[in-house]
């Protein structure tokens, strides 16, 4: 992989929200985050996509000054995480991977506690709490204990809480892990709404490809504490070569036909597998017509869009959704004591 060079010193560039330089965290022999460097722009939704144990939470924990780095440094909104921890904390909001609500407090009380700890001025406190509850559609449940909420409601309340002090940077650690698909889409719509409404940088970690693809402006694929690829979702998929197209031809393809197909600039490769023509094509939906014109009659057409999973596979030789990810979901479901 090409190494990225950084010309500017951290903190200089004002349009940068986060600048990470050679950040490292070791736990004994294990290096959870390994000399990682990264710039994140203001207003960006940035995704850290990687399997369980890749070091995503550790990276966020250092940026949120919950953990001191073993070496290296980073700035958040211009504040150095080692030298100015309090300034960093003031400008960030965080939604943790595990449950972080007080189950015995009501939704409103949870928000009140946060507002007091973050010094949200008394005059605007109640109004902001009301707005935050409104945003995540929990107004009618404001006086119910958080312990009685479903997983999705809890997550929504946590997001609302993280916004009370109007952070410049919002960290979301696996915001939809363990939630059912419908609730997950619900949360996604809040995140999108936020990104539009506020001038906020959002950094989210996930091991769901779909989530990163759908929400993020840019994605870093992270594996064993290192960034293995960094690009826009489309850019990453393009590196894969493109979409996979399978055409079940009525009759066998002639060599001349194959040669003509290969000449298209958008066709990356062509092969034949038991009567089917398998192509890797850039932006298949757009170019399908031209292909069909040459091939003639087909009995079936399959288009498999390029997925980040394949990109990840290509860069690391491993699937992103492995058993340990499933095991983690189990642990999340079966209770607090066993998480991690």
């Amino acid at each position, binding site marked *: 992989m090409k190494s990225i060079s950084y010309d500017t010193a951290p903190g200089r560039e004002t349009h940068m929200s986060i600048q990470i330089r050679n950040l490292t965290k070791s736990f004994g022999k294990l290096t959870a985050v390994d000399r990682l460097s990264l710039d994140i722009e203001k207003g960006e939704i940035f995704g850290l996509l990687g399997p369980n144990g890749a070091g995503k*939470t*550790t990276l966020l*924990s250092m940026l*949120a*000054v*919950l*953990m*001191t780095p073993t070496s290296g440094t980073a700035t958040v909104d211009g504040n150095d995480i080692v030298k100015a921890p*309090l*300034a960093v*904390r*003031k400008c*960030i909001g*965080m939604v*943790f*991977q*595990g*449950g*972080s*609500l*007080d189950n*015995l*407090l009501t939704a409103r*009380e949870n928000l009140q*506690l*946060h507002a*007091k*700890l*973050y*010094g949200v001025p008394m005059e605007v406190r109640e109004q902001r709490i009301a707005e935050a509850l409104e945003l995540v559609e929990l107004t009618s449940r404001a006086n119910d204990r958080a312990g009685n909420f479903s997983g999705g409601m809890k997550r929504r309340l946590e997001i609302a809480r993280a916004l009370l002090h109007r952070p410049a940077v919002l960290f979301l650690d696996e915001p939809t892990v363990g939630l059912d698909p419908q609730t997950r889409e619900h949360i996604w719509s809040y995140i999108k709404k936020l990104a539009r409404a506020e001038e906020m940088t959002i950094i989210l970690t996930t091991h769901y490809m779909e989530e990163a693809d759908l929400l993020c402006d840019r994605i870093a694929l992270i594996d064993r504490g290192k960034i293995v690829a960094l690009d826009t979702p489309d850019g990453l998929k393009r590196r894969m070569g493109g979409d996979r197209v399978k055409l079940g031809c009525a009759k066998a393809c002639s060599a001349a036909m194959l040669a003509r197909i290969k000449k298209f600039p958008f066709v990356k490769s062509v092969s034949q597998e038991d009567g089917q023509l398998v192509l890797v094509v850039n932006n298949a939906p757009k170019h399908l017509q031209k292909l069909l014109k040459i091939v003639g009659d087909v009995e079936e057409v399959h288009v498999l869009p390029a997925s980040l999973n394949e990109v990840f596979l290509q860069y690391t030789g491993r699937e992103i959704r492995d058993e340990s990810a499933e095991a983690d979901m189990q642990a999340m479901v079966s209770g*607090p*004591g066993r*998480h*991690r």
Partner: protein
Amino acid sequence: MSSLEGVLAVWWREVVVYTREKERAISSVVTPLIWLFAFGAGLGASISVAGLNYQSFIFPGILAMNVLFTSMFYGMYVVWDKKLDVLKEILIAPQPRWVAFSGKVLGGLTICAIQATILMAVGALFMGIEITPLSYLSALAGALLFGMGSASLGLFIGAKLNSPDSFSLVMSFVMWPLFLTSGALYPIEHLPAYLQVLVHVNPMAYGVDLVRGALLNAWTYGPLLDAGVLLAFGALFFWLGKSAFEKMNLG
């Protein structure tokens, strides 16, 4: 000031959570009552100590025991908060770490005060212990002076531990020894010399003495020495606990 507001916010949180955790609240009052009635009345039927019936004699000691166990478990409870991300949510706030620590200590002391009040009410109503407003207040002050040190000690241990598995070790090697060598259950004058040394270096002995003196006017060390030792114990562990909170890395 926002730091003061932070302390008050954490304090408020601790007290509200305590009042809603019915099981914890009930068991922490019932346990000392069992000691008083089963142990005190059972053994006490045949014994009198220092001119007092045995149940009255151990009453201040059980009150101090309740402070010790309640505040230390309360402190070690942060191990659970650490397992969930509840503690992170408080510690990530733009407040110095002493804010969360002080709020927790205040919360622990408030819980101890509530329980000590309940116990003293039971003592006055059902055990014939004479309690005046003044003796109530001085016994409460003594209990809290000791509680400051033991709550800080519990928080200190909680900040250092990574899993609740070691709770029973702390019970065996810290809590029971502190309790059993504090003179809570017997007068220390009759102990062999080497055991007396253990009592004299045990800060809880001074807490028991202060509470017993306040309620029964029976002193071993006297109020000044008691208060002095307890203040030193409290200050030392408050500082150690605060430093442990500052060093705590949350993964």
